[in-house]
């Protein structure tokens, strides 16, 4: 190989310089710059509307742009013809579950179709198809029409179709959105394996902050701009600060005090999390302690902040959050709400059959007044059916339950009158103003005319909507719309609130605002909240979690207890950094660490006996000449818990 080839190898696969994309007057991408090296997994993280999709489409050559420079695979993309020249060497999977696939075609026909589009020779196709379908565990479903696959399987099939012509660069737009944690983990495994085998470069976008660790390098995007770019660790160093976690006796009071000094203070389940910018751990602790003078504080610890904390800090640096009206007004007119008195929701052995299919199978749980209860599970696990039964829309086939004191078997009308409901998609009227919507729902829920103005005033203050009451909903951003949906659900003062994936597509700051309100409702107003969510770090907010799988509840406890149980059963998570990393992973797999998985440039594995495992890893690496850079213990995340529980359940079913 000559000098030229070497230089070419070092040149970035993608180079974006001050790229600008406008839709009429709307700025979608506003001067983004970054470059992606060969063999990297590069991440674009940001909320909906940050410009990720536009940027990816421009790189994939399917969207023209107005300004800046773009080089892809050594080609300067300045014309349709130039984009056409590199299209054969890249693969692009657009956003949406299986939107690029054909629902009527079988798995195999879909793959064949994409192969023919790309002129893959038949022998070559047979070989690659076999390998890719095996890797994605879709081999057994070759003849199944794509429309009958689950969300996760669709997404994996989409990946196979994107990879069938062995592109050098793959561009995946939110491949894991709406996909259950197990399929998500599968997805990342396949991606890293491909990277190991061939010199593929990947550009992947995500709305999940907790996936940031999967990337080698990433850009945090917001409002069309790249806020910060680099390796995850580097980004964290750019935003210095300490995260203080504590449990206070009087959480409400403590949170109020902390909020006056620290803009990034929030209640997460029983804990309080405070991000103290620019402070080393000792200083941060001291500052927090000073703020909580005189309150009983248990377990205070200073830890390293997460990427989401850094992201929010960066956003607030750009646009200091205007201190919107204090939203601590009460929902109920008469002073104190009823005390936390027993069960708001009780489900006993609830079942629901559809024809020959049991969607919900003997599900039992209780939610107390003032408790935030999380219902988690993949699409099709039965969450939606369970919620439909509890909200009185769908009668149960078997079992019983009470919601807000009404029996769900024959008092569905009473239930409907007593609960509030926020649906997954924003479902208020976009062609009406904020006040018109609230008025409508207040009247539907029977708020008497004499109290309309007062009720609406209260929820407007609670949800921080006072600046926008006369605006049409269609003109409001996502985050505010979701708060409006919440206000609409609260306008009649329900004591039980159902939320079905309420925060999908909302940016981190908006999500945090939303949770602030929920926490206030639960802690101060003693409202019982049942919520479903895809975001694992949101699950941490819940006081209690139930994990559903195939219609049943397979785990049901507090987040802390769930994690502790995992540590008991499966061991601790070891976080390893090694050089070179791919041979290290191979060595670990060969040595019997079956669940070793790549997380960006690091390796995670489960081990029961830490010291023994560490010793083994050290000797193993020494034998193979692999340098061990760092080995650390990590508390398992809820995602770890759920992946473990679901796989365990699947194994039990398979062996039964």
């Amino acid at each position, binding site marked *: 190989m000559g000098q030229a080839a070497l230089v070419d190898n070092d040149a970035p696969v993608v180079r974006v310089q001050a790229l600008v994309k406008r839709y009429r007057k709307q700025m979608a991408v506003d001067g983004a710059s970054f470059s992606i090296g060969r063999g990297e997994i590069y991440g674009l993280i940001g909320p909906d509307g940050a410009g990720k999709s536009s940027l990816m489409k421009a790189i994939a050559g399917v969207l023209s742009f107005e300004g800046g420079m773009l080089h892809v695979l050594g080609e300067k993309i300045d014309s349709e013809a130039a984009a056409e020249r590199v299209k054969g060497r890249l693969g692009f999977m657009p956003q949406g579950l299986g939107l690029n696939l054909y629902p009527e075609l079988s798995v195999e026909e879909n793959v064949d179709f994409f192969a023919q589009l790309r002129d893959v020779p038949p022998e070559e196709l047979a070989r690659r198809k076999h390998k890719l379908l095996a890797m994605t565990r879709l081999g057994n479903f070759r003849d199944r029409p794509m429309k009958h696959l689950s969300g996760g399987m669709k997404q994996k099939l989409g990946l196979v179709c994107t990879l069938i012509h062995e592109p050098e660069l793959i561009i995946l737009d939110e491949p894991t959105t709406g996909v259950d944690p197990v399929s998500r983990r599968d997805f990342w495994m396949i991606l890293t394996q491909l990277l190991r085998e061939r010199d593929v470069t990947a550009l992947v976008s995500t709305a999940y902050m907790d996936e940031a660790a999967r990337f080698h390098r990433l850009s945090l995007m917001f409002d069309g701009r790249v806020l910060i770019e680099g390796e995850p660790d580097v980004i964290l160093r750019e935003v210095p600060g300490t995260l203080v976690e504590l449990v206070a006796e009087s959480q409400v009071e403590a949170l109020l005090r902390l909020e006056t000094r620290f803009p990034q203070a929030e209640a997460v389940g029983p804990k309080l999390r405070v991000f103290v910018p620019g402070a080393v751990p000792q200083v941060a602790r001291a500052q927090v302690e000073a703020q909580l003078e005189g309150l009983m504080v248990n377990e205070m610890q200073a830890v390293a902040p997460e990427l989401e904390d850094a992201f929010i800090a960066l956003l607030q640096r750009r646009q200091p959050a205007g201190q919107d009206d204090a939203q601590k007004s009460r929902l109920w007119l008469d002073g104190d709400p009823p005390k936390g008195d027993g069960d708001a929701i009780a489900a006993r052995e609830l079942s629901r059959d559809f024809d020959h299919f049991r969607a919900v199978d003997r599900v039992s749980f209780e939610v107390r007044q003032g408790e935030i209860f999380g219902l988690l599970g993949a699409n099709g696990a039965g969450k939606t059916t369970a919620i439909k039964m509890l909200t009185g829309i769908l009668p149960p086939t078997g079992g019983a339950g009470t919601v807000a004191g009404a029996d769900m078997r024959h008092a569905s009308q009473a239930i*409907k009158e007593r609960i509030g409901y926020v649906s997954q998609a924003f479902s208020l009227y976009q*062609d009406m103003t904020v006040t018109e919507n609230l008025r409508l729902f207040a009247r*539907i829920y029977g708020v008497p005319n004499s109290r309309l103005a007062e009720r609406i005033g209260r929820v407007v203050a609670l949800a921080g909507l006072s600046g926008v009451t006369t605006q049409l909903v269609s003109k409001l951003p996502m985050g505010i719309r979701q708060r409006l949906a919440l206000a609409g659900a609260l306008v009649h003062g329900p004591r039980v609130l159902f939320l079905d994936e309420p925060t999908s597509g909302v940016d981190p700051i908006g999500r945090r605002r939303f949770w602030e309100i929920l926490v206030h409702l639960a802690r101060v107003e003693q409202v019982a909240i049942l919520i479903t969510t895809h975001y694992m770090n949101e699950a941490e907010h819940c006081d209690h979690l139930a994990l559903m799988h195939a219609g049943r509840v397979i785990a049901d406890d507090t987040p802390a207890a769930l994690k502790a149980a995992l540590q008991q059963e499966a061991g601790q998570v070891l976080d390893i950094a090694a050089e070179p990393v791919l041979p290290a992973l191979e060595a670990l797999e060969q040595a019997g660490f079956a669940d070793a998985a790549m997380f960006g440039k690091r390796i995670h594995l489960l081990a029961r006996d830490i010291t023994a495992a560490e010793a083994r890893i050290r000797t193993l690496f020494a034998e193979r000449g692999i340098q061990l850079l760092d080995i650390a213990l990590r508390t398992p995340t809820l995602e770890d818990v759920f992946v473990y529980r679901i796989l365990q359940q699947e194994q039990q079913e398979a062996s039964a």
Partner: protein
Amino acid sequence: MNGGPAENRVRLYLWWSRLAAMTAKELIQFGRDTLLLIAIAYLFVFDTYMAGNVGMQLNHAVVVVHDADHSAASRELVYRFRPPYFKLGGEVLDNRAGQRLLDSGQALVALDIPPHFERDILQGKPTDVQVQVDASNTVLGFLASSYAAQIIGQYGFDQTLARLGVTERSMQNVPMIRDEHRVWYNPNQNDAWFMPIAELLTVITIMAIMLPAAAAVREKERGTIEQLLVSPLTPIQILLPKVIAMTLVILLGTAVSLFFVLHGMFDVPMKGSLVLFFAVTALYTFTTAGLGLYIATIARNLAQAAMLAILVLMPMIFLSGAWTPPEAMPAGMREAMVLSPLYHFIEMGYGILLKGAGLDVLWDSLLGLALLGMVIFGFGVWRFKRQFG
């Protein structure tokens, strides 16, 4: 349910209050939909206005002539094809050129006069002229050929009389039947009365199906139906406000069209009771909305709803007598017309507006309309409840 009269009163009040809130919401949304407002204004005002202007009459139909005789007699015949019905489109050199003009649609009638036309007439020999008519538009073709036959016949009659030497006075001795007819209800046989009424009633039908269908499908499309279903609203409380609101809108449109376009511009008489007319219209729109609700249960989006509405509307209009009079229908279809609510509505519309008829005459149409309407509305409500109950 237990609960005393006081509680029942509260329930009843709540029921009405919910209905009122939802109806207000439908009207607000309707008022914000600019495109829909334009469509409504267009249909109720401009469409009925245009219908009053484009009558089904022969209007300056182009006649081309191949005159192989070029005589005084042939010229006289040719000049009898005069405006406003006909217009001379010039002469062609041979028959084939005339055919081409018919083919290309530049002429509606081709008149072919043979050589020796005048000589044959003067000698009293029978002679033929050929009239070719483009009947691709059946009505116009029929009118053109019958007018042409009338002109030619009259010409032949005049020639015969002249040849027989019949004078004005001696005419009185020729046996002749004089046709003395009276035209009632529309004495001038003014198309500008018939057409816009038919059009207005058709527009009412389209709106009565489309508006509630659109309002219901929009809720499905945008997911707002989900929020309504978890609320204490019953399916009836969800669907009735749509029907009520849209009936109000249609009645308003009808009033504008009737007073400003039909009466204001075309002097369509309003002989009967307007109260009765609007009451019938309200009954008609309300019940026909059942079809719209049914469509909304099948369609997943607005485009599908529009397609389905057309599918329902076509036979309804076709069987209504708006386009083809009942007498012109073949036997089976004439009987089927009683199944089209629009047929009864048109009967009543004409009856009230033009004839000044009251319920004493129109009771059978009202009965037909009411029965059909109840079935349709009941069906729509049943389907809606089944899907959203």
